[in-house]
């Protein structure tokens, strides 16, 4: 089991770096979907350490349905309907964003070594993976221009937050977790609607066209 868990964590981080370097939207959406699937797998793999298995099964199932199937499907529909160009046009190039992502991974490991967990250690990779994924998400939102990519970045950020949330599943009420997943769905749903409108008004999903409001 231990080897599988290690592998899953490492894959999540590898996907972070892949997303930073990826120039095709389709591949990026698939990577986010795969990352979502890995998260639900992780939720199952980490169940062994003594909390109610039924609860974790719900969390893992919910995460898989929403993060690995529903949202990627919505995103694919959005880019198909809008016949979006495949290449992304980053504000920060792929190589610099890869380097920044790598720096983020190193810093995350340093941070989590400096901050010992008050609870029992679930897995030594958990906190650094969560922080590196949050960092990747922030980087994607800030450094990409297309609305679709910014939404992808936001999803990656939420994935990172979810990984961190795995630490708390044994004492957080189910309600809060359900709220987390629902809110994620709702956020993307609304963002999707807005994206459709952006398409109608500008005939492109380039948020750079959204710059008439300046000081």
């Amino acid at each position, binding site marked *: 089991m231990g080897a599988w868990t290690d592998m899953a964590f490492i894959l999540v981080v590898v996907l972070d770096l892949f997303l930073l370097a990826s120039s095709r939207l389709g591949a990026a959406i698939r990577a986010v979907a795969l990352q979502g699937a890995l998260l639900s797998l992780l939720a199952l793999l980490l169940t062994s350490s003594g909390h109610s298995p039924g609860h974790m099964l719900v969390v893992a199932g919910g995460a898989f349905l929403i993060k690995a199937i529903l949202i990627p499907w919505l995103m694919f529909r959005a880019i198909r309907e809008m016949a979006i160009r495949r290449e992304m046009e980053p504000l920060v190039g792929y190589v610099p964003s890869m380097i920044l992502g790598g720096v983020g991974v190193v810093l995350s490991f340093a941070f989590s070594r400096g901050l010992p967990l008050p609870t029992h250690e679930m897995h030594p990779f958990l906190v650094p993976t969560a922080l590196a994924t*949050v960092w990747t998400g922030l980087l994607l*939102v800030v450094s990409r221009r297309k609305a679709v990519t910014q939404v992808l970045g*936001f999803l990656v950020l939420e994935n990172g937050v979810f990984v961190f949330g795995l630490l708390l599943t044994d004492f957080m009420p189910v309600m809060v977790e359900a709220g*987390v997943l629902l809110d994620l769905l709702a956020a993307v749903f609304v963002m999707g609607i807005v994206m459709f409108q952006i398409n109608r008004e500008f005939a492109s999903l380039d*948020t750079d066209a959204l710059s*008439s409001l300046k000081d």
Partner: protein
Amino acid sequence: MIVFVILVPFVLGASAFAWPDNRTRPALLVVGAALHAVGIASLWIHPEGPVMHGYLFLDAAGKVVVTTSSILFLASALYAQGYLRHRSDRDNRVFVGGLLIMLAAMTTVGMAQHLGVLWVAIEITTLATAPLIYFNHNARSLEAAWKYLLVSSLGIALALLGTFFLALSGAGPDGPRSLLLEDLIRAGPQLSRPWVRAAFVFLLVGYGTKMGLAPLHSWKHDAYGEAPGLLGALLAGGITNFAFLSVVRVLQVTSAAGEGAFARDALLGLGLLSMALAAVFMAGQRDFKRMLAYSSVEHMGILAVALGLGGAAVTGAFYHVLNNGLSKGVMFLAAGNIHRAYGSKRTDQVRCAARRLPVSGSLFLAGFLAVTGTPPFSPFWSEFMILNGAIGTGRPVVAGLFLLFLAVIFIGMGATVLHVVQGSDDGAPGNPGFKDGWLTAGPPLVLMLAVLALGLWLPSPLMGLFSAAARLVTGT
């Protein structure tokens, strides 16, 4: 009653989406606002204990903010009757439904005693308001709505991470393992301090984005500039106040854990930065609604400074929450009227508003005097209390900067406001047929009179409430 004031606007909001008639639908706003106000009034007369396993409870701090927004929402709901009649070409289904759901979510924030519930409610306020900014259905309002949604969502995601950090800080062997405020505060020193500190940073960035503190304010001027005036009033006088309340909740826990000094320094820094930035961008602003957005950045800065100072200034902060809510209502509603009467919000086109709209024009001027802290209006007194707190806690530099920024903002804002209100009408675009009416000029007038009355005489129960709210934060 606690459940009632949350459920009623929620149910009415849901039914607004199903309501078939565009002309009568806005009446639901008044029904929701009136029932909400009655519910809050009854909670004043008969206070209730915690409900839902202690998750919801109206404490002193929540009472200040919820009451303020109840009054503001009632005024905005009445104003909306006149406004939406002028905009009868637009489908108002989403607008009316969204506003009511926003009221339900805001009330939940005010009463939440559990940081998870608080977070969910804050998220719902964002989701409910983003489509409302797009009410005018043009490219500029779309851009504003997109920015608002993206920036707020990022803030909210980071706030969730901060909430997780805080949960983790109490997960030790004898920690509370809970996100209830009461448990966290009782556990105080047993919380893991490094994690509390990290949690505060993330939560301050997250909820600070919702407040619109500099440098996290980038959504604000666009959203306020493009949203209808009454939504601007509810964002600047309602939602940002609730974001402030969320920061207060976080500070309560952080102080109990012994990291209060660090947290207050961070708040003081962000607050002064917000005031400075508002002072710089206020000058020469050519769009009077965007000018109001910078005024909102300034007032959130004032609140952050007051929290950062601690002591007597915190009482002033809660007084200022009330004043900010009421006076922002005056400014945004009056600005909305002026916008309609000129079909423009650019200061090179809008002149002599005092003649074209005698009531709204004068209210815009009077509201300006109030928000910039001119006596005898009530914001003067709350800002005076904060200044007093700064001197009382031995922070003369902070007090000096506070006064300097207020003075610069007064001059910068005054130039724009006088330009709009006075002068001659020559060259201004024609009036598309908008006049001050009972429904459009009445609500801001009543709010303005309330600001004046509170400045002349502050009832002692209110003062007691502000001190009680401040005690929750300062612990003395």
